[in-house]
């Protein structure tokens, strides 16, 4: 049962990065769009996201529920050591969701729209950054169970160059996914070109910040790079993600909507797979040298059995309805 629970955990993380990530990325793109085109991008983002964003963000809740039920040791240690970035993340989540909805539903369209947009866009960036930062912090080997000072216990695990570079990497990754996803939602040539440009720009940032992750891991004494080169599978995954890029460009230019989306999804998959090969089953690397893993923090069998079945049964309910939702609002529309 443990493996079934882990599979669901991985699926939820992947789907959250893909669907939630596309949502966050949409906000980031809006943030970095020039004044003249802002209005158009905003409408595009709103129309693309509105029917599905609530559902997209459910994956994080499923992830959290799996964590606290099946891996309480991970959940509580993260809650303690990464307390501050988590709070900032939550503030971002609260502001972002409400600003998005308020912007869409406000009965009067006046100056307040600008404020909602600002909050929505800035908090999208904030949430993505801290999401990435938290992931980096987990494996930075700076989390400790017995802190001797406030700095060591609650600040150092996340205030370091390595975590910051993973934060930037995730921002560009999300923006990249969003731009590929949004291209097909837009109907006018101008916006399409803008988004393709964004996708390329974000690829460049992604490559740069990806390199930074490696460099800073050396500087910060994080064993990320060493581990990476020890795992052929993760090297292969990253190579696959990179060679997919040129294909993606061709296809984007040709306007093959679903193929480009699937390729972007596959690239995300490869990147996460690389992470998986490097670390699985470890989740938190401790300063003490030991780790908290999906194996050593797992809840007793009776709990896992119940959760596993709940997830299996739940997925029979969720996946068909979710598919129906996407069919109504995404598939039926994009096929003319």
């Amino acid at each position, binding site marked *: 049962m443990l493996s079934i629970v882990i599979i669901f955990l991985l699926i939820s993380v992947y789907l959250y990065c893909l669907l939630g990530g596309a949502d966050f990325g949409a906000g980031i793109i809006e943030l970095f769009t020039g004044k003249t085109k802002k209005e158009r991008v905003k409408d595009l983002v709103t129309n693309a996201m509105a029917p599905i964003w609530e559902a997209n963000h459910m994956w994080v809740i499923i992830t959290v529920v799996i964590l606290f039920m099946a891996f309480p040791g991970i959940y509580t240690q993260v*809650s303690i050591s990464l307390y501050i970035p988590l709070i900032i993340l939550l503030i971002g*989540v*609260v502001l972002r969701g409400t600003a998005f909805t308020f912007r869409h539903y406000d*009965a009067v369209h006046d100056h307040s729209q600008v404020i909602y947009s600002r909050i929505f866009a800035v908090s999208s960036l904030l949430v993505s950054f801290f999401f990435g930062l938290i992931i980096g912090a987990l494996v930075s080997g700076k989390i400790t169970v017995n802190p001797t000072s406030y700095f060591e216990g609650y600040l150092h695990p996340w205030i370091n160059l390595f975590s910051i570079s993973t934060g930037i990497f995730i921002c560009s990754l999300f923006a990249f996914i969003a731009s590929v996803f949004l291209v097909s939602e837009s109907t006018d040539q101008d916006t399409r070109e803008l988004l393709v440009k964004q996708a390329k720009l974000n690829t460049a940032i992604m490559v740069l910040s990806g390199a930074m992750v490696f460099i800073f891991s050396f500087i910060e004494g994080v064993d990320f790079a060493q581990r990476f080169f020890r795992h052929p599978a993760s090297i292969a995954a990253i190579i696959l993600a990179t060679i997919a890029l040129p294909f993606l460009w061709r296809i984007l230019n040709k306007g093959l909507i679903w193929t480009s989306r699937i390729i972007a999804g596959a690239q995300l998959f490869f990147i996460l797979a690389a992470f998986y090969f490097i670390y699985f089953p470890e989740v938190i690397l401790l300063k003490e040298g030991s780790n908290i893993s999906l194996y050593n923090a797992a809840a007793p069998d009776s*709990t896992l059995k119940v*959760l596993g079945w709940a997830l299996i049964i739940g997925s029979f309910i*969720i996946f068909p*309805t979710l598919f129906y939702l996407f069919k109504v609002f995404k598939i039926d529309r994009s096929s003319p």
Partner: protein
Amino acid sequence: MDNLLAARSTMAITLGFHIILACIGMTMPFLMVISHWIWIRKKKKIYLDLTKTWSRGVAIFFAIGAVSGTALSFELGLLWPGFMKYAGPIIGMPFSWEGTAFFVEAICIGLFLYGWKKLSPYIHWISGLLVGVSGILSGIFVVSANAWMNAPAGFDWINGQAYNIRPFEAMFNPAWISESLHMSIAALEATSFGVAGIHAILLLKKHNYEIHKKAVIIALSFGSIFAVLQPLSGDHSAKDIAVRQPEKLAAVEGLFQTQKNAPLTIGGIPDAQNQETHLGIKIPGLLSFLAFGDFDAEVKGLNEFPPENRPPVVIVHIAFQVMVACGFFLAAVGIIFWLMRWKWKEHLFSKWFLYLAAISTPLGFLAVEAGWTVTEVGRQPWIIYNFIKTADSVTPVPGQIFHLSVFVIIYLILTIVAIWLMKRQIRALNESQEEEVD
């Protein structure tokens, strides 16, 4: 303010905020689909307008509910790691089912709000109904997690560790029926009266549009059923805690000494120092009767419990009085409403009745907050009743006061903005109705 107190206050504020939205999210979809049903059947445009108006409310409140709920699922760990460490594996199951229910809810709300032109009317209607049904289900699931904190079950506690975890037993713990029944009814009651009250206020303000009248009728017809049921369900809850958590009942009643033929105290201020409750009307024997069905039954007082295990009696007692007062008031309004509908239909929208409805607007929500204060403060000093103390499970991270301040500020701003948005919605609605009259 020390860390523990700050953490408790943060928990209380975030939950107190979330529960309002949860109530709305559990109830508004039902009001919406009732109106939608009438529209599908009678094709009177006014019902379509009402459905759409309400659905915009659902969308706005649902989003705030969803983000505050997401915050909560992290906060349980952020504030009480010493609790979640044990509680997660034992009581995670209802949360995992709740996750499924939320998912269905989030999907269906997308379908309902944006599916007007894309779905057939009946599928569309069903998607709206499912929003409400899964809302109620998710409410039942979380509350059963809370019930477990009051009536822990499904594990063996050996040397400070939980063994032999039995998740089903934990979820279907002795308190889950009384709590989730009472909570579900509370949500349906509070929101219906809230909605009816707002439309009544608009009518009083001379926005004399038919749509507000229809809204009042739908909301009160629905809500009054639950208003009448709620005191019965509350009585069931009280009988339940009399057996399960006698110190909670003693605090609720401000009963300091164990006694037979115990009186029911209405109102009054408990005085923990002198061990008695001042003022208040005491009805001899009634508490014994209500708790155990026998006027001579013995009811345990706070003196039976060591001082460090007694809940804060003043808050709990006052909160209980507030809840019960609201409960009987709303039940009375509900009964009056039906009398008027049957016998004096022409006076249904007379001023005095609209005033009654208007006064009721916040009372259900007030009762919900008060009720949760009874349940949660009445459980203190325990976080898991009789097993783990709240003080032992609080996070070791210092500086909780900042966390508290930030969330107070954010939720305050959100509340203000949400009210302001509602006002703008209402103004837009009134203007659109005006055009139609012209």
